[in-house]
């Protein structure tokens, strides 16, 4: 168990280090996704299954995709085709793949042995989280919704002006 | 009859309001009618009221009419109330009669002026204020009239406002008299602090009980009142404004700066005689001031070449006589001289106005001459006035009033031979400068041609004034000539009679003879110097000492220059230096420091996001560090 934690933690740190030192944005994003996956594994190990699922679905799934969209929008044109090709080389995806493989191996191991399903004090079920969320933290939920709305409006507003700018290109990103 | 008292000042005020509101749109005859009617009706009323008072004296010899309570605050309750007694009766009669005839004169003299209605409005305002001053039952109302006449004086000196010199003269008059007025205001405050009232009768009634003879507060009160009086009456040391005040039209000089307003100081001292009696030092000061002023002013009058300035200095000198009389306790003599002076000096100014207008606005004596034949009526009336001013014996009013003053300056308990001698020397000088003026203007060879002759209104006024200038004196005559004492008897209802020290008959005759002879010598000297030996005079003027003295006297003994260097220039320079308010520098400095600091802090605002992030991080680390630190050392 300890080893599993340490392996995941090491993977997270290594991937993050690569993410902030990478010279290329896509590179960095791939490493960061791996880092997120590693953190998700740690969540799993800590007994926070719900958080682990959210980490993968929302963080790695939604937010990072947004990043990738933007990166792609930054340099459109003929050069991007070539760049696309460049990205498909193994040098780019080898490192993340290895780390992801390690994490996958860990997961498979847990699934096989059931060691991850630890019962005890640390286990917090999603139902508990939900109750807390819509009980004492109701106000926080409302505030979070306001924040999200503000983000939505802000992004829309910026995008609107982006589209209207003379010489600017019509880009409709309806994020969030 | 007496109940109409309030109408006397109210009528001129009404005329003023009417003219100020609508005078601009009226035709000139209507303006003249309203302007003269206001004061004229008031004069008629004043005479009626005066006779009524004289024939049927009310209880206590004073009739008081209270109109309303002016203000009431914490025991201070001055009223708007008028008081008629012998003194104010003499004053209102003089003021309204003189005022009416001067206004009559003005209807013609000022014809064609742009500010015709403005002139009559101001003149009526003046008459109203002057009547308020003399009729006031309490000192605060008196102060109202006092400032009102000062205001009118200011407005009328600056009547021809286009010329900056006139405006400056007006400002000077206003400011200098205001210095005296402020002293008067403080005097009022002192009196109120000690008597809890400003009613003149109450103060005079209570003062002998409240104050010892010669006590400090009495002296202070008297001194402050005197300050007001010397300001208004152009006595030393505040006499400097009057010669410049001649910038106004001649009727203004006649009414305000000769006959009435400048005598207000005399009136004030006479009115508050009780206070001065309690402060003998101050009363002596009054006498000395009067004596010195009359000599100084007479000497200055000798050196002037502007006809109106001669008359202005002579006015100062004659009021010096009145102060001399007040100083020795000869209250009624002072008031008598005021009355005669009002008539003859108004006459002289009006005559001078005719001469000036006849020669096309020429003021210089040396460019006049020989006008005796061209302007005969003016000549004779001017001569009557001049004779009265010089106090030529027996036939003129000035002689009787001046003789009374000289006699009492000698014979009064407070009098002294020195004061008498000063008065006598003044009489000689008066004869000298008066007839110098007469000879220069009307005799000798002709100067400038006459372009305007006096008309009916002017002539009437001149004749009436000549009559008064010669005859008013018969109301009061020396015992040696004829025992007529109508005037002092009448005034004794209000003013205390002077307890004269017995003088031997021989001395008395000697005194009378001196008073008879001194003006005659002066007049003959004038004749000798101006007509007989003009070269001699010119030689004196050209000699070094002579010309220095001439310039010194021309400039009124250098008082103007003295005040200019001591007060005016330092004040103006100081004010100008501090125009931008030195205190603001402090706040400006603060603002400068703040903006420098802000500039410095702006430097940190580099616009670099990463630097900001570093700052945030460093702040967080420091904050966490502090928390850790204090956790370790609780």
């Amino acid at each position, binding site marked *: 168990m*300890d080893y599993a934690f340490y392996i995941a933690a090491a993977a997270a740190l290594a991937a*993050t280090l690569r993410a*902030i030192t990478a010279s290329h*944005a896509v590179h960095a994003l791939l490493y960061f996704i791996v*880092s997120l996956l590693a953190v998700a594994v740690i*969540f799993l190990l800590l007994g*926070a299954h719900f958080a682990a699922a959210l980490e993968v679905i929302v963080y790695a799934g939604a937010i990072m995709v947004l990043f990738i969209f933007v990166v792609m929008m930054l340099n459109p044109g003929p050069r991007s085709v070539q760049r696309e090709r460049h990205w498909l080389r193994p040098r780019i995806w080898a490192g993340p793949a290895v780390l992801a493989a390690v994490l996958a191996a860990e997961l498979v191991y847990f699934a096989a042995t059931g060691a991850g399903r630890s019962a005890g004090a640390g286990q917090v079920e999603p139902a508990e989280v939900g109750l807390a969320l819509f009980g004492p933290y109701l106000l926080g939920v409302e505030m979070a919704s306001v924040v999200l709305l503000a983000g939505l409006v802000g992004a829309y507003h910026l995008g609107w002006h982006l589209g209207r700018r003379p010489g600017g290109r019509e880009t409709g990103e309806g994020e*969030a | 009859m007496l109940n109409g008292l309030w109408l006397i000042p109210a009528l001129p005020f009404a005329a003023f309001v009417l003219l100020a509101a609508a005078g601009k749109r009226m035709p000139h005859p209507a303006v003249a009618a309203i302007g003269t009617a206001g004061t004229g009706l008031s004069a008629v009323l004043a005479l009626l009221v005066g006779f009524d008072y004289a024939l049927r004296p009310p209880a206590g010899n004073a009739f008081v009419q209270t109109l309303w309570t002016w203000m009431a605050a914490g025991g201070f309750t001055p009223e708007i109330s008028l008081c008629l007694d012998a003194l104010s009766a003499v004053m209102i009669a003089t003021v309204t009669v003189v005022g009416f005839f001067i206004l009559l004169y003005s209807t013609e003299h000022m014809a064609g002026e742009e500010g015709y209605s403005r002139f009559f409005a101001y003149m009526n305002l003046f008459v109203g204020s002057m009547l308020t001053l003399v009729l006031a039952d309490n000192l605060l109302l008196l102060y109202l009239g006092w400032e009102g006449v000062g205001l009118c004086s200011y407005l009328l000196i600056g009547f021809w406002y286009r010329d900056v010199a006139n405006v400056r003269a007006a400002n000077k008059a206003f400011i200098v008299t205001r210095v005296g007025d402020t002293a008067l205001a403080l005097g009022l405050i002192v009196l109120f602090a000690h008597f809890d009232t400003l009613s003149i009768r109450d103060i005079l009634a209570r003062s002998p009980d409240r104050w010892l003879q010669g006590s400090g507060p009495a002296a202070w009160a008297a001194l402050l009142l005197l300050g007001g009086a010397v300001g208004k009456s152009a006595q030393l040391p505040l006499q400097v404004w009057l010669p410049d005040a001649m910038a106004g039209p001649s009727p203004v000089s006649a009414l305000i700066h000769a006959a009435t307003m400048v005598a207000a100081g005399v009136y004030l001292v006479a009115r508050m005689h009780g206070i001065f009696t309690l402060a003998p030092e101050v009363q002596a000061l009054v006498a000395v001031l009067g004596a010195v002023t009359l000599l100084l002013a007479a000497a200055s009058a000798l050196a002037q070449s502007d006809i109106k300035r001669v008359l202005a200095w002579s006015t100062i000198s004659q009021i010096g006589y009145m102060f001399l009389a007040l100083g020795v306790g000869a209250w009624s003599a002072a008031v008598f001289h005021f009355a005669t002076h009002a008539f003859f000096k108004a006459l002289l100014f009006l005559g001078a106005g005719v001469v000036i207008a006849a020669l096309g606005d020429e003021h210089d004596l040396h460019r006049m001459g020989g006008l005796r034949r061209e302007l005969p009526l003016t000549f004779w009336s001017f001569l009557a006035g001049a004779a009265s001013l010089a106090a030529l014996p027996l036939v003129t009013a000035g002689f009787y009033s001046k003789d009374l003053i000289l006699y009492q300056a000698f014979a009064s308990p407070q009098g002294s031979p020195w004061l008498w001698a000063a008065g006598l020397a003044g009489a000689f000088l008066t004869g000298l400068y008066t007839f110098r003026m007469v000879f220069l203007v009307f005799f000798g060879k002709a100067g400038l041609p006459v372009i305007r002759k006096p008309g009916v209104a002017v002539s009437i006024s001149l004749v009436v004034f000549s009559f008064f200038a010669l005859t008013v004196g018969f109301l009061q005559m020396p015992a040696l000539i004829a025992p007529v004492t109508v005037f002092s008897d009448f005034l004794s209802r209000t003013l205390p009679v002077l307890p004269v020290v017995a003088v031997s008959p021989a001395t008395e005759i000697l005194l009378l003879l001196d008073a008879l002879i001194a003006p005659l010598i002066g007049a003959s000297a004038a004749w000798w110097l101006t007509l007989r030996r003009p070269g001699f005079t010119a030689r004196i003027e050209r000699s070094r000492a002579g010309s220095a003295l001439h310039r010194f006297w021309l400039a009124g003994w250098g008082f103007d220059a003295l005040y200019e260097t001591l007060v005016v220039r330092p004040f103006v320079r100081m004010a100008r230096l501090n125009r931008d308010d030195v205190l603001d520098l402090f706040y400006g400095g603060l603002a400068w420091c703040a903006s420098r600091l802000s500039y410095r802090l702006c430097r940190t*605002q580099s*616009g670099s996001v990463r630097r900001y992030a570093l700052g945030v991080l460093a702040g967080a680390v420091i904050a966490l560090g502090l928390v850790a630190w204090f956790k370790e050392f609780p």
Partner: protein
Amino acid sequence: MSGIPLQSGLVVAGLLFGLGAAGVLFRRDLLFILLSLEIMTNAAGLAFVTAGALWGRPDGQVLFIFILAVAAAEVAVGLALVLWLYRRTGTLDVDRANRLRG
């Protein structure tokens, strides 16, 4: 949870946070800065969840969800700004985007 050292969870969170902060400080590309910010929020989330696990309470995960919401909003606006900046200046170098300099 006998084996998992909860202190180490916090240490990992701290290290991740530090890496994120270093990224913010040392990268000049706005996109990377944004990425590093995400790393930092993620690290904070990890710290919350770890602490929640320590006490066995759901609050840690609740706050993680809030962080997630904030991060989502932040990324949405942040990326829009990135695009804006790029359109206006043609670069993502923050050191050149210093028009707010005082």
